[in-house]
């Protein structure tokens, strides 16, 4: 009875359009599922048994990617409650921790997975270096990796300003202070003033939209944190994973 009903469902056009093959418990379907699902297609169909060994990758790259997914998920939740306005932002976060259902948990998860991601990406780079996995033909993927590391740090850093508390304001103030020391394009940097840089036209001014960290800086960091950098890092990851497929995984023979 149940069998017949299941068969009826599986034969419907709707089901067939969704699942183009049977349950992946044999070679053919285990291959087909990897081909036909765009997400699974990031993986190869088969891999070397030895590449599975935890000791080799320690799952560090995979967990970095998982952290990014979790951050996207919790981040979208936070965005529903957050307004990047210096008069509101702090109170939004306060409300989130006390008045919003699951708000505190989402914020904590967002915070700790961000810290974990920074750490994991460094650790992943260390693994890739130690196992010589960056050597030809994987040079370019290492370069992509370095970009991903940079984006990860910047993502974390731009997020740091958003709660608009003392920690945030002053951490970003120290950080952006460095920008004014940029050679040539910062007014306090070598050859900056000689080239006509002032407090209100140099690279730091561009970054924070003013001479001090204020409303414009908050809005800029918000847009960078929630839109620009996530888009960049996603693009980077797509290339990164694609290159792993194309260059072949370095795993031991």
């Amino acid at each position, binding site marked *: 009875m149940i069998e017949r009903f299941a068969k009826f469902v599986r034969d419907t056009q709707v089901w067939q359009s969704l699942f183009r093959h049977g349950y992946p418990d044999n070679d053919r379907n*285990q291959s087909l599922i990897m081909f036909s699902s765009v997400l699974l297609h990031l*993986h190869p169909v088969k891999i070397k048994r030895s590449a599975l060994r935890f000791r080799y990758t320690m799952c560090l790259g995979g967990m970095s990617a998982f952290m990014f997914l*979790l951050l996207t998920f919790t981040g979208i939740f936070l965005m529903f409650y957050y307004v990047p306005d210096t008069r509101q932002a702090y109170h939004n976060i306060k409300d989130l921790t006390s008045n919003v259902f699951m708000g505190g948990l989402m914020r904590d998860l967002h915070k700790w997975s961000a810290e974990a991601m920074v750490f994991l990406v460094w650790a992943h780079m260390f693994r890739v270096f130690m*196992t010589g996995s960056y050597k030809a033909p994987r040079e370019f993927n290492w370069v992509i990796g370095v970009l991903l590391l940079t984006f990860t740090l910047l993502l974390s850093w731009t997020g740091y300003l958003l*709660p608009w508390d003392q920690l945030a304001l002053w*951490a970003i103030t120290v950080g952006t202070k460095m920008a004014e*020391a940029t050679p040539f394009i910062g007014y306090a*940097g070598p050859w900056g003033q*000689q080239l006509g840089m002032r407090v209100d036209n140099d690279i730091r001014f561009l970054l924070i939209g003013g001479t001090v960290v204020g409303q414009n800086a908050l809005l800029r960091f918000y847009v960078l944190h929630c839109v620009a950098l996530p888009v960049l890092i996603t693009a980077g990851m797509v290339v990164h994973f694609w290159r792993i497929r194309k260059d072949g995984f370095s795993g031991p023979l």
Partner: protein
Amino acid sequence: MSERHTTENIYPRNQKKSYALMELVKGQGFQVRKQPEDTVFVWPHLLYIELIAALVFLAGLLWVCTFKHAPLEDMASADTTPNPMKAPWYFLGLQELLVFFDPWLAGVVLPSLIIVGLMAIPYVDINPKGVGYWAWKERKFAIWTFIFGFIQWWIFIIIGVFFRGLDWAWYWPWDDWHKHKSASGASLNDMNVILHGWGLDAVAADWLTYLLVIGYFVAFMVLPALLWRSFSRQLGMARYVTVWSLMALLWLSPVKVFLRLGFNIKYFLVTPWFKL
């Protein structure tokens, strides 16, 4: 999975024939033009590992969230400046460098060069050995260099996080972190001033500092070629110059820390445009 027994039954080996049935392999699909291999299907083997790792990690994070909450201090205010002002922990290494270098170096040039230097690694490492396993013996030079830089990054972070208190002074964990430290006894001097104090003419002392700094970089360019001839020849000009200029920069912070702590030197080079 070899089935030697079955293979022998189906097609016994015959010495006189130039061909033979080598092996039968268990499986459900065709194996055309395949070498012997030791592979497994990603579904389910790898996907299970990924799923389990993700769940374990998520559980760990949730557990942390039960007792440690994301910090939230008082609302931002331009009127009260915290002391010390600290960057997020992952940038504290760079902030710590501010003790030793001016912001244009510590905050802009060195971080950029770290990124460039990391990107250069695969292109300057011409040693083909040690791919695909945790290698050590065959890649001593590469690994020492990498670890040297990696450790610097983390040591400066650890100092910034755990040992810097009021006015960015050094605090031990057992010190009273609410009491200001009196300004440290020894005052810092620039190298040209020190050389002048040793009896050198002021202009000559100035020139000497320029020469010493240039000499530092020249030494990194010349000495390796003399010490490791065949290795240098293998590298070729472009890689050689890249490797050793990056190496000179990799040693810059340790050298500066050493000169500061040992000889109270503030800058070793003072030019009208920048100080080093």
